[in-house]
């Protein structure tokens, strides 16, 4: 389990990322800033079951939602792409996807490990993907409804 107090050994390969600027600080992550939330907005995570999120998307689309927006951040980008492609296959012909990429500023807390230092913060950047899945024909939806 990686944590703030990882010994140097484990840190070395990651040093390029500048994850831990100083030995005197522990890096604590904050929640990333979220885009607009809504019923049709889904944040793809690595922890949630892939099938469950796919089902959720399918449900939304079949229930008559015109478009859904998938957000993926960092390591979840690949999952997000997979999911969108799966959706395209499942709703063959009635669904299209539109992809946007971007960069998100992430804020980390730098917690001091010694008494004579103050708290700090650093900004990291992480790539993100925003996929809009929208229906071109509402055939399936009309039947289901």
């Amino acid at each position, binding site marked *: *389990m*990686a*944590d*703030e*107090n*990882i*010994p140097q050994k*484990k840190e070395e390969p990651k040093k390029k990322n500048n994850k831990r600027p100083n030995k005197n600080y522990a890096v*604590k*992550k*904050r*929640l*990333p*800033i*979220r885009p*607009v*939330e809504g019923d049709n907005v889904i944040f793809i995570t690595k*922890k949630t079951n892939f099938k469950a999120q796919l089902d959720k998307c399918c449900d939304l689309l079949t229930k008559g939602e015109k478009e859904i927006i998938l957000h993926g951040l960092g390591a979840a980008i690949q999952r997000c792409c997979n999911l969108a492609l799966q959706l395209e296959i499942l709703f063959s012909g009635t669904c299209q996807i539109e992809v946007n990429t971007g960069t998100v*500023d992430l*804020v980390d*807390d730098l*917690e*001091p*490990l*010694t*008494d*004579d*230092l*103050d*708290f700090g*913060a650093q*900004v990291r950047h992480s790539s993100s993907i925003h996929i809009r899945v929208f229906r071109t024909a509402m055939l399936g939806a009309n039947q289901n409804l």
Partner: protein
Amino acid sequence: MGSSEFDATLGGDEHLPFSANSLKFAASRSIEIAAMTESILRPSKTKLIFQCLPVHMRRRVMSHNAKRLPIRHRVGHLEQLKKSGLPPKQKRPSRKYRRRPGNLLNEYTRRQRENVWLETHIWHAKRFHMIKRWRHSIAYAPCDKAFRACYRASSAHCLLQDISYHIPIRLTGTVDVIKEMFSKITNSGCGLGVCAKAYVDGKREGSVHLFKLNSYPFGYIGKATFIWHNDGSNKCLWLFIHPSQIEQIQSLLTDLLYNNTKESSNEIAEKRRKLMNNYSENIQMKLFPATYNRFRLTGPKSHAVLTHSLKCIQDLENIKNNKWMSDLNKSELYLNQKENYWQSIRSVSSPSQLPSKAVIGLVVKDPRLSRPKHRRKAVNYERDINVECLLNIPQFISTSPLWNTNIHDVIKKERLSNAKFIEHVTKTQLVPGEINEDDPALQSVPVVLVQRPGSQDSNFKKIGYGSGWDIILPPGYGLQFWQTFIMFGARSGGLRETESLAHEMGECYLPPDSDAGKEEEKRISEEMKEKYFRLPPSKRVNYVKLAVVSPFICPWKILLKDWSNDPVDGFYILRDKDLLSSLQDCIDQRKELPAIQNSSMCLIPVYLKMVNKGNLKRNALICLPEREDIQNVTSLFEPHHEDPNETLRKIKRKQHKVIIKKLKRKTSKLKKRRELGEINSSKTKIRTKSEPSEYVKSMRELWVPSDVKTVRRSCSRQIMGFLSQGAFSFSESLSCGVGYIAFNALDALLKTKQNQVLVRNTSSRKYRLANINIIKLP
């Protein structure tokens, strides 16, 4: 006719003396007088007191209602009533009488004498199960059993708890002296100290582990949070202490402050002695129980609740007339900066996006002005946010007049009561339903917000879980703010939610090496024991057959003794951060543990997660797996054990039955004779429900033997430790638990190159596999 005369001068035969001796006169009548006084004092008449009263003083049903007698007779009357066996019954006053405001208030103050009530008590008492703990009346759980709803509130919405029972202590003095003082009761290995640079400027709230004087790592007391406040030239340290530890900490601090002259004489260093002697002169300590209201908001939407309900005051002009402002230096309020900052972070979607543990002091409008008409869901403001304002806490934002205790009385006095508020609003409003938010009649209120970062380690818990705000309010304004938060979509929780949140977060809630933890353990074990013995014997789990030696309480000392072969007096839980993280690495890499001091008395806090199925419960056994166990765990059961006490119990029960039969016969005989009038009917003894009888005690001993000598090898796998808390964790969708294992046991586990353990519930034979993680923030 002449014979009828008495006196000789009139022709009678009696000669009267010329003088009367008064002494003789009195003496000859003394017997008479004595008899008279005696009869007055102790009337031989069998009349009751009220019957002796003159007619004009008699009243109806005097004998039933003592209050109809003159006061001087009442005591005697009650005595007489008791003698005659009639218990003096007092009728309960009518509901209408009881509900009169004055009488209700009297009743409330009477009930508050033993257990302190919080300001929101009456609101809670209508909706919550109230329990008495730590000399407070605390809401335990909502009556609608909303267990899962409360979890959902904490993870996706907003959970609101009243934690005003935390008691503030103010220490005034210079930083150096306070640092010196706290160096004896804290340790730098457990994290940042009280006087760390990060905290001293008052921008962040810190927390610190407190130990008894110079006894680290033993003698753990508890965790206290603190906030520094600049009070002119001097610095103030506000400690917030859990009520279970307040007595211990108070006595510890007073000892440190006033009784250090003896110690200092032994000190060699002159400078140190100087400092120590000056403790009591340089540091003032004061407790402020029931002063501040502190509410805890947990969950991502707690920020939305706060932004909706707290409306900052922009202009100093508006609040110039507030009475509490009169003594303050108005230039130190920084209203504009605060308003700007509060606006800039308005659209944050979760408090965990903000600087961790930040302290924000605000001056806000009366919360009643901004309430919605109906209760509604908390909704975030939608607007882009500038990353810059998340990075740093601006200067002066943390200062607050709230820490000035002189203004509290004024604020409380000037507060408009709800009735007055409604009256005022209905009188002044032009359009019905519209409220003027800048109403000068309502004073502004200083509040302090404290951010809690929640989980910041994505490997352990999802980031931001458990994040939220603490809000500290002046006295008198608890309920007003509380109701506003509720109307803006917060869900209220109680002490149960505090416990379950600690469990979800994987924190040690009241660890067992502190006095508070021991007390809690004892209380729970008593409860479990009572519940167990309330069951009929056929429904009781036979713990002897399951080879569970101590099903109700975890025998930490015996466990440690078994693993070290030395007698163990005390024990402690490892809190050294560096050591804990190195232990975690050892577990991950399956390598041997480093040697530590006092390893035989050391417990390691661990967080257990089930690998497959299984539901962990309190006091479950954490066992050391043997070589083949991990592969065959599905078929791994504790073998059946014989219960040698079973036959003993049966014999005992038989004997007892015979005795009972005899007694029954005796009593029925007595009863018959009494009916015939042979024996005076003596008063029957009322048996109070108190101690169980000798027989019951001995039977209980046979069910669960209390003299535990060894636990390590009590079942087929060696016991490493116990679970102190275990349940299904919604955030992990797995059964999880917090437990403690002996250091030597962990060493033994890692020597076998394994990093998983077996867990068995006290009521089951099945061993299950679990992963262990070290808890780094015990």
